[in-house]
């Protein structure tokens, strides 16, 4: 029983990580209809920036209690600038281009960011210092530690904040309008360029936070870590219904649980024929099954129509 509980905990933690990244993906998709392949790399850059700032600040004798939040803020600002630049340089000129063109540019941006990170921060895995005391807690045999709890709560909290922004503020109304119909929104006086840029910056700031949390949880950063994370988060966003904030959260948690429970129990369920080496296959099968019955994801889509 405790093993089962532990797998649930594992799944929820992993899922919260996916949700954090998926929220950024889904916001951008809702507004632009663009699969932002480079989002995963922004997560990675956020983690790297935090690491560098932290190392520098600690080197100057700043106390860890102050250095950590400061580094996160620096990383968020840095990623916001990065997100803004990417949108301006690579996506805005292609807004009216054939649909697949921004996809290719996004891939190009992803490659460029990965290699810039490799040049600046090196090829090896860099360890992330553990600054906050990370106490393990035991719930009925399942172990979860402080950072993991923070990740879970953070994902929920950010989703709540985003929902408030999208549904109760003028900016949110503008975002929903642009997501619904760009031309009509423009006619109603919405500055679409500004709204899109702000959305990108919000998504990128989120990515930075996600990056920090992932690095803190696993204790390492690597220039390649964004790619797989981005892919899984995209899967999660699609699972929940891309463009849908609650869908991103739900998709993330669900994907995490599927992976965890799949890895833990496929072997037993299939009598040893399939083992945990098929966990990704399992996750994709579930995705396909969901999409076959609900082609727009679990909670449908569109930032505008449903929350």
């Amino acid at each position, binding site marked *: 029983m405790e*093993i089962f509980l*532990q*797998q649930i905990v*594992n*799944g929820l*933690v*992993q899922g919260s990580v996916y949700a954090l990244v998926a929220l950024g993906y889904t916001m951008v998709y809702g507004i632009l209809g663009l699969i932002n392949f480079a989002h995963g790399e922004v997560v990675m850059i956020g983690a790297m920036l935090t690491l560098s700032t932290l190392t520098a600040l600690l080197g100057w004798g700043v106390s860890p209690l102050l250095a950590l939040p400061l580094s996160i803020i620096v990383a968020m600002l840095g990623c916001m600038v990065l997100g803004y630049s990417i949108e301006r340089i690579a996506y805005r000129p292609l807004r009216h281009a054939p649909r697949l063109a921004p996809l290719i540019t996004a891939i190009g941006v992803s490659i460029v960011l990965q*290699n810039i990170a*490799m040049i600046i921060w*090196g*090829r*090896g*895995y860099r*360890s992330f210092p*553990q600054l906050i005391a990370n106490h*393990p807690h035991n719930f009925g045999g399942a*172990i979860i*530690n402080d950072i993991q709890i923070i990740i879970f709560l953070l994902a929920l909290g950010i989703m709540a904040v985003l929902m408030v922004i999208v549904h109760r503020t003028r900016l949110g109304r503008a975002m929903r309008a642009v997501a619904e119909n760009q031309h009509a929104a423009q006619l109603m006086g919405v500055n679409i360029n500004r709204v899109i840029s702000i959305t990108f910056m919000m998504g990128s700031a989120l990515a930075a936070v996600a990056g920090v949390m*992932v690095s803190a949880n*696993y*204790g*390492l950063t*690597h220039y*390649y*870590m964004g790619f*797989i994370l981005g892919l899984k988060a995209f899967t999660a966003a699609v699972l929940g219904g891309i463009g849908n904030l609650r869908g991103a959260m739900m998709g993330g948690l669900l994907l995490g649980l599927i*992976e*965890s*429970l*799949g*890895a*833990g*129990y496929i*072997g037993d369920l299939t009598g040893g024929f399939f*083992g*945990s*080496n098929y*966990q990704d296959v399992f996750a994709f099968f579930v995705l396909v099954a969901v999409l076959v019955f609900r082609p727009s994801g679990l909670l449908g889509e569109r930032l505008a129509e449903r929350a």
Partner: protein
Amino acid sequence: MKFNSVSSLILATFVLALTGCEKSATSDQNKSGELVVRIGASAPLTGPQAHLGKDNENGTRMAIDDANAKGIMIGGRKAHFELISEDDQADPRTATIVAQKLVDNKVSGVIGHLNSGTSIPAAKIYSDNGIVQISPSATAVAYTAQGFKTAFRVMANDAQQGRVLGEYAAKNLAAKKIAVIDDRTAYGQGLADEFIKAARANGAEIVAHEYTNDKAMDFTAVLTAVKGKKPDLLFYGGMDAQGGPMAKQVKALELKSKFMTGDGGYTPEFIKLAGKAAESTYASLPGVPLDKMPGGKEFEKRFVANYGPIQLYAPYCYDAVNVMIAAMQKAGSPDPAKYLPSLASISYDGVTAKIQFDEKGDLKGGAITIYQVQHGKWQPLATMGTSTTAAH
């Protein structure tokens, strides 16, 4: 078909870049009349294993610089060695392209590749062109099983290493119930399978065989599944990039079993990534500890001064270059057709081992050392021979 200006511009730039490409080097002699000997090296210099690839390149480079400083004579002429280093991205297809490029550059020998998946297809190209290939780190048995006379390696293969590890785990560590995780790469899976065979042969029971991949960061799911089976020892077949975080998560999940890994985990990176959880981890490395080998300590000091800490295979690259040069000296020629027989029959004292090759090109009767992390550093525990079990 109409070409407009932008397309023309792009094509023109492309053609221009093509002309910037250097044609393959061919001269045998440099300005001072010295014999120019080109040695090729191939490893993944970009991608997830880039830190190991760069380490390989550094080890090779240091050996070549040393050789040039020493003023080696081959066949009565002073030899000047040149390194041509290529990035194969750990991708088999890129590896064949790189191999062809090195062949075109008329190298006398190749130190490479790093991975088994790249060494295997490249071996055919080198063999077809008669170029000697010494891999410092490819451990898959298939590499030398292909029957190419030009393929060698200076490290024990998976069969040899897995055997020693399995025996040590079951006998010396008295583990009765063992769980295995491998990373589903040619290296990790090969090593894990051999480990399982040897462990079973020595009376242990494999209670769980779980899997991950070489890009993963989260192992909590498989580790929890392993925890449920309550093993005495957990063996991980894979590299330090996963082994380190895995050790950390083992501790976080309070999984109380010994942790053992292969040569892929025996790096300073592993200790850095695992932090306090690295303590008491076992790992193995073919060869005898550097500081016990003649010239080993000095090699380490000089390498660290020039390139930083040794990641993993740099000493093997160093030995590979030197054994190649020694064979060239013995045969009196850098021509691979001439020095190949000398290489096949050579006996050379390297910094990692006494190097001798068997008829397949594998290292003959090498030793394997088991290490353990004690007080945050790798310490050697025991050195065992590999020629203990059945013929292969």
